[in-house]
């Protein structure tokens, strides 16, 4: 067996996300968002990160508010159920944040190009759109077979992907289920992968279902045990989306002062997030119905 890759979240972030890294986050779009890892990036005062992802809900907004990012390569940044992301808006409008504007399809294909080891992927989206003005990773060209206009999307190969999953073993083998967005592509495209997991499971649990594995463990650099690590986004099998937290965050990010107070309370006060959340809130979010997948057999 290889050496264990189990680290504390703080250690994993310290070791594999140096200042200046390009980081893929929020790759499942609206669920399994690695919010705990985002708070750790802020807590460690990371600087000059490039944030990569399709739709991060409020994660990118928080990391930007924390002053950690100098560039975003994304399709959307805001607060899914309330609208704008205020930290993102302030940073762009003040000129402190560079943005490469993608669509969900172009960012998916940029990461897939990275995953496939090719310099670009062709798409038929975005022709005639403003994305060409603000994204040098898009280039129109003629299909070598049909002559049709095609948008080439340049490969993105992040320095690190941070991915939250339901369970992982200490060697980096991880199960994720639900909608996975661009997670597979992001993992395969990235030089390093940090897994944050609701549960650390024995290797036999993970190897009991190799189709459920999200990326091969040998490509993973670190695994951290982080219960509630995706809150307030939902995690199938564990907890529902905490809508109130997103509504509260709209208020808590509206001004610089409000955000500073948010950061002081939720980030810099320490890393015992479940204690901050409180038992009652966690209980209200835990899944109430069970809906178990039908058995499958890998015997021989």
């Amino acid at each position, binding site marked *: 067996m290889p050496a264990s890759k189990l680290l504390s979240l703080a250690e994993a972030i310290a070791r594999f996300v140096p200042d200046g890294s390009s980081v893929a986050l929020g790759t499942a779009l609206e*669920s399994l968002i690695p919010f705990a890892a985002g708070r750790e990036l802020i807590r460690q005062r990371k600087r000059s990160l490039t944030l990569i992802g399709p739709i991060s809900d409020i994660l990118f907004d928080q990391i930007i508010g924390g002053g950690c990012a100098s560039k975003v390569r994304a399709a959307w940044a805001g607060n899914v159920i309330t609208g*704008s992301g205020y930290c993102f808006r302030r940073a762009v*409008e003040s000129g402190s944040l560079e943005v490469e504007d993608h669509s969900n399809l172009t960012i998916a294909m940029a990461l897939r190009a990275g995953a496939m080891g090719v310099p670009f992927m062709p798409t038929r*989206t975005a*022709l005639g*759109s403003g994305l060409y003005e603000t994204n040098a990773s898009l280039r129109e060209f003629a299909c070598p077979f049909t002559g049709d206009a095609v948008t080439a999307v340049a490969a993105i190969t992040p320095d690190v992907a941070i991915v939250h999953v339901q369970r992982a073993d200490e060697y980096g083998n991880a199960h994720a289920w639900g*909608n996975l967005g661009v997670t597979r592509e992001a993992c395969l495209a990235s030089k390093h992968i940090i897994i944050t997991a609701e549960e650390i499971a024995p290797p036999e649990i993970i190897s009991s279902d190799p189709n459920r594995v999200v990326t091969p463990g040998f490509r993973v650099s670190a695994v951290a045990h982080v219960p509630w690590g995706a809150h307030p986004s939902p995690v*199938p099998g564990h907890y529902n989306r905490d809508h109130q937290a997103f509504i509260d965050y709209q208020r808590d990010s509206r001004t610089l002062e409000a955000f500073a107070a948010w950061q002081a309370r939720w980030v810099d006060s320490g890393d015992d997030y479940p204690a901050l959340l409180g038992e009652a809130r966690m209980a209200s979010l835990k*899944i109430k119905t069970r809906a178990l997948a039908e058995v499958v057999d890998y015997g021989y």
Partner: protein
Amino acid sequence: MGIEVKGEGMGKGMGEGTPRPYTQPELMVAAAAREISDGNVVFVGMRLPLLGFQLAKSTHAPNAVGVYELGIIRDSAAPEPILTMGDLPNLYRAQWLADTADVMGLLQQGIVDVSFIGGAQVDRFGNLNTTYIGGAQNIEMRLPGSGGACDLASLAKRHIIIMAHEKRRFVPKVDYITSPGYGNGAGWRDRVGLPRGGPSTVITTLGVLRFDSATKEMMLVSVHPGVTVDQVLDSTGWPLRVSSEVVTTPAPTPSELATLRRFDPEGYWTSERTAV
């Protein structure tokens, strides 16, 4: 005060103080649902379209299939109210949980019949801006961006725009094209290489608009109950064409309302105070 996709300081268009058995967003969701035919493959966007799909699916379009950019395909309404497509009830007994690339492939192949997009700015040819007010070189306000909207607008067979109807939003020419409509008019989509599609309908807080088949220019075809054509013209930033036969948007039926309220019992998306 800037333009937000949702939430702040947006005016109400419809006659205030007039008691109605339904809210303005409920009317709009019902109008959106009617754009879905039975058996359609629907790429379902955020916010009101979430409800529009569920309403259509539960009424006149039981065989519609919903496709969500997160990598979800559903052929049944979610079993519990959802605020967003990533809520766990929207995953429960989905027809398929896949990757974003998979569902984008369906879209890019031309399998998606209809999709829905919101916007902060729209122009007479149905181009949408949800990225930069002022434009990319002269940023007055940064909005969230495309998400999947540019893809839906580029690749669905047709798409429906859902918007608050205000003069600052209905502009002669958008500052930035996040989601292409008909560009500068007829023939533009072909010229730039978009394989199909274009906006077919704009559902606003005031009425319903469609596009002239020859010129691809937006045209008012329906006003909501209590709204006048002049109100619409006053709220549009260019001389809006008006159909020779403007009708009144049908009100949601009691049965539609009852269904809709099961999907949004707290009125998060459909209370009178909710902006679109």
